[in-house]
């Protein structure tokens, strides 16, 4: 059974198992054991199953496509594929003296036998197809399909693994829901606390649906499907964040997350429309359809449309966009050749390159990219739309872990990664800056947050910023690599914080301290997490997973900055971000686990969590350590990702029109070499060390008093503590006006429309009154008259009814005889006459 048939089966099953458990729990959840206790087992079993399946697929993949270290030929400069819309057509062959891109592809990697190692420039090793076509008509084709490459499988494994840990963890964490719950955070009008039955099965039901949706995004074979599961993820997050929906904060947080995501999804819709309207397809890969006559028709997918083979997979505005942009000319040509459209079509086709030289369609491409990115901004809580993520902490901690590490926020980054080949340099630049801003803002806010989960939330935001930035500066592998490693250590951190909260029944770090003694496991694992996230390691020797991914990002940012001197700011953002990260992470850890207990009441009651919660911590800790390693022989996630690298992105690219300048995206492998690498590593190490030392100085050795610092920098502190006043800003700018308009509308409704309708009703009643009067007098009168007449006749006739049976018989007989006589007489008469 070859891989092409194997993978969809395995991953499809892995994808559908959570759905099954969702349905099961949905219908039979309450009946699963006492208070639905067994729902946890069902959900866990499901996710474990899909994990096992994904793992099987993973190894099946490795068996066919072994991972070997990617090494790159030297003369990348010449092979660099350029993207200069102003300068006309995309491919470098135009420029004399340079090898054709195809050769460039070969030249790019020293010898041909390396093609299998990574995608080279012949595109990634990917399998795609459709399970089921929902609708096909005109240009629109909606189908449930798969697009599977190394990235997909890797993400599958990661997601299912983390989800498994979280399921196990949650089955311990949520045990309160097994019996009636008294929610102390909800005060009813009668002054009592809310008392409600537990919702254990419901939680796992939502969890399963969540996993199903996330896996759906991962395996999706076309953008439409992605969008559907995108929304599903949104609604699941709504369920889960609002799990304690009786709490106002929780429900508002849920709504906030949902609405903010809608904003992003709106942009995404625009992007989708731009793409589909112009190109007419939404599926990633080319699809072969065998016609009834056996002819195999090849319909190109998005990737090959934007990076066609003839340009050596260099990004090029597809004809569809060009014609769409040049609609006026197209219309005139079509009008000229109204006689026979064929000529018109051919002429249009002939003139497309010219138009492309003229730069038509660039903006459409830009809009498409930015639109798609907008969706990712929403999901991954990037700069303008980052406000929802911290509030999402209202959900149960396992949910936070899931949302922040593996599923929702990952979805955004994953989509950008998946969509990378379609993004033009300008879009990438936008992404980079958005990422930079996000990471900086979030990090600064995290500095002063006191809620342990909020700190983690903001660190998540800023890490996402990292990933976005990495992608934005052309570090495709770097970004996704960081996504994977971050998934591990961030979920680890969240689960640790969850266990801390579980022990202390509070989120406030100011009430904690000195917990390491009571909770050794949690403390150690959390320390591992912190080290991983700050990218600790012995430079050039070995490090935790974060060490590798972060270095990759730094390096790529550095090489980008060197290539485009005007964008050094990006590198500074990354470096500073690294320092801030180190600081707040260790601030968190010190405040929580070291020093003297600040609240003895809590410290006494604190206790290590049950094993069912600790086990996942250990597993994740181990992974957080080893995830980044590359084994001798070259097996490592980084190299695995290389297999999925989109076509034509090896050598980076140059181009860009929107910001009046040409951007250069250096090839990623260059950042692993020589000077850049060293600089990046040292920077990362220095910044991280600095941050850690500062944190230690302030919270461990207490040489610097945090309070003093806060007072010294009061305004800045207030500003940060107020989270840059984003919420207030949005409240003033969007919410208030919206409410005002709504009130106005309702006023109009009540005052104007209702009045009108009431008036009509009043008139109708009057009219009906008149009608009734007519009915009563005229119509009824007639009817009664008839009735009376009949009645009187009946009275007169009743005399005939003697009620004597025998008389009736007589009558009958007499009648018969008389009739007979008459008839016979008549007969005689006729015969005679």
């Amino acid at each position, binding site marked *: 059974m070859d891989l092409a048939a194997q993978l969809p089966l395995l991953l499809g099953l892995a994808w559908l198992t959570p759905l099954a458990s969702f349905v099961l729990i949905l219908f039979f959840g309450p009946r699963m054991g006492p208070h639905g206790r067994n729902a946890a087992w069902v959900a866990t079993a499901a996710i474990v199953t899909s994990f096992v399946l994904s793992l099987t697929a993973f190894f099946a993949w490795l068996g066919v496509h072994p991972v070997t270290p990617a090494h790159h030929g030297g003369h990348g400069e010449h092979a660099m594929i350029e993207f200069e819309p102003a300068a006309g057509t995309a491919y470098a062959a135009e420029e004399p003296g340079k090898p054709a891109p195809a050769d460039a592809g070969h030249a790019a990697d020293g010898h041909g036998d390396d093609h299998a190692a990574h995608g080279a420039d012949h595109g990634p090793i990917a399998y795609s197809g459709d399970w089921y076509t929902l609708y096909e008509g005109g240009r629109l084709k909606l189908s449930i399909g798969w697009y599977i490459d190394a990235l997909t499988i890797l993400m599958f494994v990661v997601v299912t693994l983390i989800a498994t840990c979280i399921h196990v963890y949650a089955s311990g964490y949520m045990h309160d829901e097994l019996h009636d719950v008294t929610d102390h955070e909800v005060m009813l009008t009668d002054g009592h606390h809310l008392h409600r039955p537990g919702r254990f099965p419901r939680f796992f039901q939502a969890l399963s649906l969540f996993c199903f949706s996330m896996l759906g995004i991962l395996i999706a074979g076309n953008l439409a499907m992605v969008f559907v599961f995108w929304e599903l993820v949104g609604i699941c997050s709504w369920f889960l964040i609002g799990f304690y929906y009786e709490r106002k904060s929780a429900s508002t947080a849920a709504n906030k997350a949902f609405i903010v995501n809608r904003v992003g999804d709106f942009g995404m819709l625009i992007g989708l429309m731009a793409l589909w309207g112009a190109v007419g397809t939404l599926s990633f890969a080319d699809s072969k359809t065998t016609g009834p006559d056996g002819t195999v028709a090849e319909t190109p997918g998005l990737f090959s449309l934007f990076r066609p083979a003839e340009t050596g997979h260099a990004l090029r505005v597809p004809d569809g966009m060009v014609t769409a942009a040049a609609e006026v000319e197209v219309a005139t040509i079509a009008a000229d050749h109204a006689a026979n459209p064929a000529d018109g079509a051919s002429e249009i086709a002939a003139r497309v390159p010219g138009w492309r030289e003229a730069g038509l369609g660039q903006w459409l491409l830009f809009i498409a990219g930015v639109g798609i990115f907008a969706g990712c901004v929403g999901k991954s809580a990037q700069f303008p739309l980052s406000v929802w993520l911290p509030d999402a902490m209202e959900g149960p901690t396992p949910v936070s872990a899931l949302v922040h590490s593996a599923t929702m926020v990952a979805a955004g980054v994953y989509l950008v990664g998946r969509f990378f080949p379609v993004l033009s340099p300008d879009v990438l630049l936008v992404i980079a800056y958005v990422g930079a801003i996000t990471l900086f803002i979030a990090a600064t806010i995290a500095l002063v947050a006191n809620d342990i989960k909020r700190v983690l939330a903001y660190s998540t935001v800023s890490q996402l910023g990292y990933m976005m930035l990495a992608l934005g500066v052309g570090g495709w592998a770097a970004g996704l690599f960081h996504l994977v490693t971050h998934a591990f250590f961030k979920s680890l951190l969240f689960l640790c914080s969850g266990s801390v909260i579980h022990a202390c029944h509070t989120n406030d770090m100011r009430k904690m301290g000195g917990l390491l003694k009571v909770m050794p496991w949690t403390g150690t694992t959390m320390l591992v997490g912190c080290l991983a996230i700050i990218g600790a390691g012995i430079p050039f020797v070995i490090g935790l997973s974060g060490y590798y991914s972060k270095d990759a990002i730094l390096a790529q940012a550095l090489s980008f900055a060197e290539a485009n001197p005007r964008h050094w700011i990006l590198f500074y953002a990354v470096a500073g971000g690294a320092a801030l990260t180190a600081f707040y992470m260790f601030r968190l850890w010190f405040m929580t686990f070291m020093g003297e207990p600040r609240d003895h009441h809590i410290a006494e009651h604190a206790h290590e969590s049950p094993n069912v919660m600790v086990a996942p911590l250990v597993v994740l800790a181990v992974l957080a350590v080893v995830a980044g390693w590359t084994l001798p022989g070259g097996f490592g996630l980084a190299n695995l990702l290389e297999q999925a690298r989109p076509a034509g992105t090896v050598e980076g690219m140059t181009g860009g029109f929107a910001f009046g300048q040409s951007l250069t995206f250096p090839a990623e492998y260059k950042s692993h070499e020589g000077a850049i690498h060293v600089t990046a590593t040292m920077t990362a190490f220095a910044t991280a060390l600095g941050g850690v030392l500062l944190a230690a100085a302030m919270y461990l050795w207490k040489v610097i008093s945090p309070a003093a610092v806060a007072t010294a920098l009061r305004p800045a502190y207030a500003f940060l503590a107020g989270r840059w006043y984003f919420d207030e800003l949005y409240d003033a700018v969007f919410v208030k006006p919206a409410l005002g308009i709504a009130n106005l509308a309702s006023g109009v409704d009540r005052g104007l429309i209702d009045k009108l309708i009431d008036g009509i009703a009043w008139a109708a009643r009057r009219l009906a009154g008149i009608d009734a009067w007519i009915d009563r007098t005229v119509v009824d009168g007639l009817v009664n008259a008839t009735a009376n007449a009949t009645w009187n006749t009946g009275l007169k006739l009743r005399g005939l009814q003697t009620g004597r049976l*025998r008389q009736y018989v*007589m009558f009958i*007989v*007499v009648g*018969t*005889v008389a009739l*007979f*006589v008459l008839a*016979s007489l008549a007969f005689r008469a006729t015969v005679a006459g």
Partner: protein
Amino acid sequence: MTPTLAGLPLTAVVPPLAAINWHSFFFLLFASIACGFAVAVVTATNVVRMALYLVLSLAATAGLFLLAGAEFVGAMQLMIYVGGTLVLLVFGVMLTAQAPFVSIATSGGDRVLAGVVGAALLGALLMAGLSVPAWRAPASGKLAEPAATPLGMALVGVRVDEPAANAPEKAVRPGYLLPFEIISIHLLVVLVGAAYLARAKRRKTPRAIDVAASVEPPASVAEHAAIGRGPAGAGSVLAGGPALTGGPR
């Protein structure tokens, strides 16, 4: 001396044996029984006698049917009419046969009137019956084919008598399946309806069977009488209720 009948020599009245058509003879026998007892039913005053006469008359009619070659109808007549309907009738007679009702006198006027009207009707019918010469033609006397099986077949929808009398391409003449079904449904309805009509309504009077079970006739005569009046009367008589001439009424 030769035997005489009504002042005439017997030979003038009774034709020689050889000349006698025995079919006609039996017909005459049965016909006279049937008609005679039919008239007797009219003239009799006692209900039970009437019932008896009716039975005899109908039985004789069955004989007539057999003579006409319709054994099935004849047997049917015997079974349903005589064996069923009339038993039912007599049954009813007994149930209601209290002394005052056994014979209810009818006013002479009614009798005369009925006689006149009846005579008129009879006249009309006879005129009609005898007016068609084809009917007066003497019987061909050809043997009738046994009708039971064809009739049964016809009742279930297949006409086997003269199936192909008409052209072969014409299918079988449809039998009486539909009427048969209608009749059966009708019978069912009648059964239910009769049971409903004759059901015991007043439940407060002790049920007939229980009364039967309680064995002190003298004490229970009064209440039996009540029952006899009451709807449970049927049951009560069945199960050993009041005397023939009920209780005091």
